[in-house]
C-alpha cells in the first residue's frame, strides 16, 4: 500500500479566509486612514508657512487597491516642495516628508499586524 497523507478541512479553511478578508480589509482601511491622516496633519504642522503654498500642497488621496489592498497616497505637491525637502544652492535640505510618512507607515503596519493577531492568526515579523 502506498504512503498516503490525507488532509481534511480545506473547505472550512477557505471559507474562514474568505470571511476574514473583507473584515480585515475594513479594519485596515480604518487603521491606514488614521495613520495617513496623522501624517498629513503632522506634515502640515511641520512645514513652515510663508505663502501657505507648501502646506496647501499636502493632499491625502484614498485609492482603490487591487483585491483587498488598502492604499492611501499622501502627496506634497507644491511647486517648491522638492526645494524645501532636498535643498537649494542657498538653503539646506529639510527632510520632512520622508521621516514623517515612514514613521506613520511603520506604525500602520504594526497596527494592522496587531489586528490580524487579535483574529487568532500568526504574523511573522515584517520586513521594513
Amino acid at each position: 500500500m502506498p504512503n498516503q497523507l490525507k488532509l481534511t478541512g480545506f473547505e472550512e479553511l477557505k471559507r474562514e479566509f474568505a470571511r476574514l478578508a473583507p473584515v480585515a480589509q475594513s479594519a485596515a482601511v480604518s487603521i491606514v486612514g488614521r495613520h495617513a491622516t496623522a501624517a498629513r496633519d503632522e506634515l502640515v504642522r511641520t512645514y513652515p508657512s510663508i505663502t501657505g503654498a507648501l502646506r496647501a500642497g499636502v493632499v491625502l488621496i484614498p485609492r482603490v487597491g487591487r483585491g483587498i489592498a488598502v492604499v492611501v497616497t499622501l502627496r506634497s505637491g507644491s511647486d517648491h516642495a522638492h526645494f524645501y525637502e532636498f535643498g537649494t544652492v542657498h538653503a539646506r535640505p529639510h527632510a520632512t516628508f520622508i521621516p514623517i510618512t515612514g514613521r506613520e507607515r511603520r506604525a500602520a503596519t504594526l497596527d494592522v499586524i496587531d489586528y490580524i493577531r487579535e483574529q487568532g492568526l500568526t504574523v511573522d515579523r515584517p520586513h521594513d
Partner: protein
Amino acid sequence: MIDPNEVDRAVIGALAADATLAGLLPGGVFWDLAPVGSTAFVIVSLSTSRGYDELAGGITSRTFVYLVKAVAKGTSSAPTAAADARIQAILDRGTLDLAAAGCSLMIARWIDRVRYTENVTASEIWQHRGGRYEVTVTPV
C-alpha cells in the same frame, strides 16, 4: 556604542577620497550646504534614521538614510549625471571606513533617485542630481 557623527564623516570621507568624483565636481563634498562661491560640488544630508530593537530591548543596528546629490551651475546636466553615476559606484554596495564610528557596515545601498533644476534667476541655473542611500550599521 555607535557614533552617528562618525558614520556621517565616513560617508563624506568615502566620497571626498575619490579622485574621479573630485575631478567631476572639484568644489568638494559638504554637509548640507556648500561654501559661497562653489559651483560644482557634492551635498550630503541626513534624510532619516532609525534603530532596531533586536535583542532584549537593546538597539543592535541602526539605519541612516542620506541624501547625496551632485550640484553644478549651468544648463548642462552632463556633469551632474556623470557625478551621480560615480556616487552610486562608490556608495551602492560600497564600503565605508567605520573604525571611528564603533560599528561595522551591514549594507550601504541606493534607495531612490532625486533630480531637479533650480532657477535662481533667469540666467542662473543649477542642476541637482543624486539619490538617497541607506547605510545600515551594527555595533562592534
